[in-house]
Protein backbone atom coordinates (compact mmCIF):
# COMPACT_ATOMS: atom_id res chain seq x y z
CA UNK A 1 0.00 0.00 0.00
CA UNK A 2 2.79 2.38 0.98
CA UNK A 3 4.59 1.54 -2.27
CA UNK A 4 1.47 2.27 -4.31
CA UNK A 5 1.17 5.68 -2.67
CA UNK A 6 4.86 6.48 -3.33
CA UNK A 7 4.60 5.45 -7.00
CA UNK A 8 1.37 7.38 -7.38
CA UNK A 9 3.19 10.49 -6.18
CA UNK A 10 5.96 9.98 -8.72
CA UNK A 11 3.50 9.57 -11.58
CA UNK A 12 1.59 12.71 -10.62
CA UNK A 13 4.90 14.57 -10.25
CA UNK A 14 5.86 13.87 -13.86
CA UNK A 15 2.58 15.48 -14.93
CA UNK A 16 3.33 18.48 -12.66
CA UNK A 17 6.59 19.17 -14.45
CA UNK A 18 5.35 18.32 -17.88
CA UNK A 19 2.21 20.46 -17.74
CA UNK A 20 2.99 23.16 -15.18
CA UNK A 21 0.07 22.24 -12.96
CA UNK A 22 0.00 21.65 -9.24
CA UNK A 23 -1.08 18.07 -9.58
CA UNK A 24 -4.23 18.37 -7.50
CA UNK A 25 -6.51 17.81 -10.47
CA UNK A 26 -4.95 14.38 -10.91
CA UNK A 27 -4.25 13.68 -7.22
CA UNK A 28 -7.84 14.03 -6.09
CA UNK A 29 -9.37 11.43 -8.46
CA UNK A 30 -6.35 9.19 -7.84
CA UNK A 31 -6.99 9.24 -4.09
CA UNK A 32 -10.71 8.64 -4.60
CA UNK A 33 -10.31 5.68 -6.96
CA UNK A 34 -6.88 4.14 -6.26
CA UNK A 35 -6.85 4.68 -2.50
CA UNK A 36 -10.62 4.60 -1.96
CA UNK A 37 -10.74 7.86 0.00
CA UNK A 38 -13.77 10.11 0.48
CA UNK A 39 -14.10 13.18 -1.78
CA UNK A 40 -13.70 15.77 1.00
CA UNK A 41 -10.78 13.86 2.54
CA UNK A 42 -9.05 13.60 -0.86
CA UNK A 43 -9.43 17.33 -1.46
CA UNK A 44 -8.14 18.29 1.97
CA UNK A 45 -5.17 15.95 1.60
CA UNK A 46 -4.45 17.32 -1.87
CA UNK A 47 -4.33 20.86 -0.43
CA UNK A 48 -1.86 19.62 2.17
CA UNK A 49 0.39 18.09 -0.52
CA UNK A 50 0.41 21.41 -2.36
CA UNK A 51 1.70 23.39 0.65
CA UNK A 52 5.43 22.59 0.26
CA UNK A 53 6.96 23.97 -2.97
CA UNK A 54 6.79 20.62 -4.77
CA UNK A 55 6.92 22.33 -8.15
CA UNK A 56 10.25 24.03 -7.40
CA UNK A 57 12.35 21.46 -9.27
CA UNK A 58 10.10 21.78 -12.29
CA UNK A 59 10.12 25.59 -12.08
CA UNK A 60 13.94 25.60 -12.18
CA UNK A 61 13.86 23.80 -15.53
CA UNK A 62 11.43 26.38 -16.96
CA UNK A 63 13.45 29.26 -15.49
CA UNK A 64 16.59 28.06 -17.27
CA UNK A 65 14.71 28.33 -20.56
CA UNK A 66 13.38 31.82 -19.76
CA UNK A 67 9.80 30.59 -19.85
CA UNK A 68 8.62 32.37 -16.69
CA UNK A 69 6.69 35.63 -16.20
CA UNK A 70 7.60 36.30 -12.57
CA UNK A 71 5.32 39.31 -12.02
CA UNK A 72 2.27 37.57 -13.47
CA UNK A 73 3.09 34.53 -11.38
CA UNK A 74 3.17 36.54 -8.15
CA UNK A 75 -0.13 38.23 -8.99
CA UNK A 76 -1.65 34.80 -9.63
CA UNK A 77 -0.35 33.47 -6.31
CA UNK A 78 -2.04 36.34 -4.45
CA UNK A 79 -5.33 35.84 -6.27
CA UNK A 80 -5.31 32.11 -5.63
CA UNK A 81 -4.55 32.56 -1.91
CA UNK A 82 -7.72 34.52 -1.23
CA UNK A 83 -9.87 32.82 -3.84
CA UNK A 84 -9.04 29.45 -2.31
CA UNK A 85 -10.31 30.47 1.10
CA UNK A 86 -13.62 31.50 -0.48
CA UNK A 87 -13.84 28.27 -2.43
CA UNK A 88 -13.24 26.10 0.60
CA UNK A 89 -16.03 27.86 2.49
CA UNK A 90 -18.37 26.93 -0.38
CA UNK A 91 -17.21 23.31 -0.63
CA UNK A 92 -17.10 22.24 3.01
CA UNK A 93 -20.84 22.29 3.73
CA UNK A 94 -21.69 20.46 0.46
CA UNK A 95 -22.55 16.75 0.56
CA UNK A 96 -19.62 14.60 -0.59
CA UNK A 97 -21.57 13.21 -3.53
CA UNK A 98 -22.51 16.61 -4.91
CA UNK A 99 -18.92 17.81 -4.52
CA UNK A 100 -17.71 14.78 -6.48
CA UNK A 101 -20.14 15.56 -9.28
CA UNK A 102 -19.08 19.21 -9.38
CA UNK A 103 -15.43 18.18 -9.41
CA UNK A 104 -16.11 15.95 -12.39
CA UNK A 105 -17.78 18.77 -14.29
CA UNK A 106 -14.91 21.11 -13.41
CA UNK A 107 -12.36 18.68 -14.83
CA UNK A 108 -14.32 18.36 -18.04
CA UNK A 109 -14.55 22.15 -18.42
CA UNK A 110 -10.79 22.47 -17.78
CA UNK A 111 -10.14 19.80 -20.39
CA UNK A 112 -12.23 21.67 -22.96
CA UNK A 113 -10.43 24.96 -22.16
CA UNK A 114 -7.02 23.32 -22.54
CA UNK A 115 -8.08 21.74 -25.79
CA UNK A 116 -9.40 25.05 -27.08
CA UNK A 117 -6.14 26.78 -26.22
CA UNK A 118 -4.21 24.10 -28.06
CA UNK A 119 -6.37 24.62 -31.11
CA UNK A 120 -5.82 28.40 -31.14
CA UNK A 121 -2.08 27.91 -30.79
CA UNK A 122 -1.78 25.52 -33.70
CA UNK A 123 -3.91 27.86 -35.84
CA UNK A 124 -1.51 30.71 -35.08
CA UNK A 125 1.41 28.46 -35.93
CA UNK A 126 -0.13 27.52 -39.26
CA UNK A 127 -0.84 31.20 -40.03
CA UNK A 128 2.76 32.15 -39.19
CA UNK A 129 4.15 29.32 -41.31
CA UNK A 130 1.97 30.46 -44.19
CA UNK A 131 3.33 33.98 -43.88
CA UNK A 132 6.92 32.78 -43.85
CA UNK A 133 6.57 30.55 -46.87
CA UNK A 134 4.09 32.63 -48.85
Amino acid at each position, binding site marked *: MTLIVLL*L*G*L*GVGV*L*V*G*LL*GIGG*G*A*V*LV*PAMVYVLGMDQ*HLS*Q*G*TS*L*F*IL*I*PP*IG*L*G*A*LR*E*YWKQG*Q*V*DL*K*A*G*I*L*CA*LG*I*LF*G*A*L*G*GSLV*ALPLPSRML*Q*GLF*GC*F*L*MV*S*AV*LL*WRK*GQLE*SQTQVANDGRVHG
Partner: protein
Amino acid sequence: MGVSMAEGIERDAGIFLVACICGVASGMFGIGGGVLLVPLLGLFFSFSQHRAQGTSLVALIPPTGLLALLAYARQGFVSWRTGFLLIPGVFLGGILGGMLAERVKPHRMRQIFVGILFALGAWQALSAWRR
Protein backbone atom coordinates in the same frame (compact mmCIF):
# COMPACT_ATOMS: atom_id res chain seq x y z
CA MET B 1 -10.16 35.48 -27.31
CA GLY B 2 -6.48 35.16 -28.03
CA VAL B 3 -6.10 38.90 -28.52
CA SER B 4 -3.72 40.37 -25.96
CA MET B 5 -5.28 42.81 -23.51
CA ALA B 6 -4.04 46.31 -22.76
CA GLU B 7 -0.55 46.45 -21.31
CA GLY B 8 0.30 47.66 -17.83
CA ILE B 9 -2.07 48.03 -14.93
CA GLU B 10 -5.15 46.73 -16.74
CA ARG B 11 -3.33 43.57 -17.72
CA ASP B 12 -2.10 43.11 -14.15
CA ALA B 13 -5.59 43.62 -12.76
CA GLY B 14 -6.95 41.15 -15.29
CA ILE B 15 -4.38 38.53 -14.34
CA PHE B 16 -5.18 39.04 -10.65
CA LEU B 17 -8.90 38.64 -11.32
CA VAL B 18 -8.40 35.47 -13.34
CA ALA B 19 -6.21 34.13 -10.52
CA CYS B 20 -8.98 34.84 -7.99
CA ILE B 21 -11.34 32.69 -10.06
CA CYS B 22 -8.73 29.93 -10.21
CA GLY B 23 -8.39 30.31 -6.45
CA VAL B 24 -12.08 29.68 -5.88
CA ALA B 25 -11.73 26.48 -7.90
CA SER B 26 -8.61 25.64 -5.89
CA GLY B 27 -10.41 25.86 -2.55
CA MET B 28 -13.58 24.19 -3.79
CA PHE B 29 -11.84 21.22 -5.34
CA GLY B 30 -8.64 20.92 -3.33
CA ILE B 31 -6.39 21.51 -6.30
CA GLY B 32 -3.54 23.91 -7.03
CA GLY B 33 -5.44 25.87 -9.64
CA GLY B 34 -2.78 25.39 -12.30
CA VAL B 35 -5.02 23.21 -14.40
CA LEU B 36 -7.29 26.22 -14.92
CA LEU B 37 -4.59 28.91 -14.78
CA VAL B 38 -2.54 27.47 -17.67
CA PRO B 39 -5.31 27.56 -20.29
CA LEU B 40 -6.69 30.91 -19.05
CA LEU B 41 -3.28 32.65 -19.21
CA GLY B 42 -3.02 31.42 -22.75
CA LEU B 43 -6.54 32.28 -23.85
CA PHE B 44 -6.86 35.74 -22.25
CA PHE B 45 -3.28 36.99 -22.12
CA SER B 46 -1.66 35.22 -25.10
CA PHE B 47 0.95 33.35 -23.07
CA SER B 48 2.69 30.61 -25.05
CA GLN B 49 2.17 27.11 -23.68
CA HIS B 50 5.63 26.86 -22.11
CA ARG B 51 5.44 30.35 -20.63
CA ALA B 52 1.96 29.74 -19.22
CA GLN B 53 3.21 26.54 -17.59
CA GLY B 54 6.35 28.16 -16.16
CA THR B 55 4.32 31.08 -14.77
CA SER B 56 1.74 28.74 -13.32
CA LEU B 57 4.53 26.95 -11.46
CA VAL B 58 5.59 30.28 -9.88
CA ALA B 59 2.06 30.75 -8.59
CA LEU B 60 2.20 27.27 -7.05
CA ILE B 61 5.45 27.82 -5.09
CA PRO B 62 4.05 29.88 -2.18
CA PRO B 63 1.59 27.98 0.02
CA THR B 64 -1.43 29.49 -1.74
CA GLY B 65 -3.77 26.81 -0.45
CA LEU B 66 -2.86 27.40 3.20
CA LEU B 67 -6.06 29.23 4.18
CA ALA B 68 -8.16 26.60 2.42
CA LEU B 69 -6.16 23.76 4.00
CA LEU B 70 -6.82 25.15 7.48
CA ALA B 71 -10.54 25.22 6.72
CA TYR B 72 -10.46 21.56 5.61
CA ALA B 73 -8.24 20.48 8.54
CA ARG B 74 -10.60 22.05 11.06
CA GLN B 75 -13.30 19.64 9.83
CA GLY B 76 -10.94 16.63 9.86
CA PHE B 77 -10.78 16.33 6.09
CA VAL B 78 -7.00 15.82 5.80
CA SER B 79 -5.18 12.46 5.68
CA TRP B 80 -1.75 13.61 6.86
CA ARG B 81 -0.09 10.21 6.43
CA THR B 82 -1.13 9.81 2.79
CA GLY B 83 -0.03 13.38 2.18
CA PHE B 84 3.46 12.85 3.60
CA LEU B 85 3.88 9.72 1.49
CA LEU B 86 2.85 11.49 -1.72
CA ILE B 87 5.01 14.62 -1.35
CA PRO B 88 8.48 13.15 -2.17
CA GLY B 89 7.18 11.38 -5.26
CA VAL B 90 5.46 14.46 -6.61
CA PHE B 91 8.60 16.55 -6.04
CA LEU B 92 10.99 14.14 -7.78
CA GLY B 93 8.52 13.45 -10.56
CA GLY B 94 8.19 17.21 -11.08
CA ILE B 95 11.91 17.55 -11.90
CA LEU B 96 11.65 14.63 -14.30
CA GLY B 97 8.57 16.10 -15.98
CA GLY B 98 10.21 19.53 -16.26
CA MET B 99 13.18 18.00 -18.07
CA LEU B 100 10.86 15.97 -20.30
CA ALA B 101 8.81 19.07 -21.18
CA GLU B 102 11.83 20.56 -22.96
CA ARG B 103 12.05 17.56 -25.25
CA VAL B 104 8.46 16.50 -25.82
CA LYS B 105 6.30 18.49 -28.22
CA PRO B 106 3.84 20.35 -25.98
CA HIS B 107 1.12 19.92 -28.55
CA ARG B 108 1.07 16.12 -28.42
CA MET B 109 1.49 16.08 -24.63
CA ARG B 110 -1.45 18.40 -24.14
CA GLN B 111 -3.69 16.27 -26.34
CA ILE B 112 -2.96 13.28 -24.15
CA PHE B 113 -3.50 15.28 -20.97
CA VAL B 114 -6.80 16.71 -22.21
CA GLY B 115 -7.98 13.16 -22.88
CA ILE B 116 -6.97 11.96 -19.41
CA LEU B 117 -8.53 14.98 -17.73
CA PHE B 118 -11.81 14.67 -19.57
CA ALA B 119 -12.04 10.96 -18.84
CA LEU B 120 -11.31 11.52 -15.14
CA GLY B 121 -13.94 14.25 -15.01
CA ALA B 122 -16.57 12.15 -16.74
CA TRP B 123 -15.78 9.23 -14.43
CA GLN B 124 -16.09 11.40 -11.31
CA ALA B 125 -19.34 12.97 -12.46
CA LEU B 126 -20.84 9.61 -13.45
CA SER B 127 -19.97 7.83 -10.24
CA ALA B 128 -21.43 10.71 -8.22
CA TRP B 129 -24.59 10.43 -10.27
CA ARG B 130 -24.97 6.69 -9.74
CA ARG B 131 -23.98 6.54 -6.10
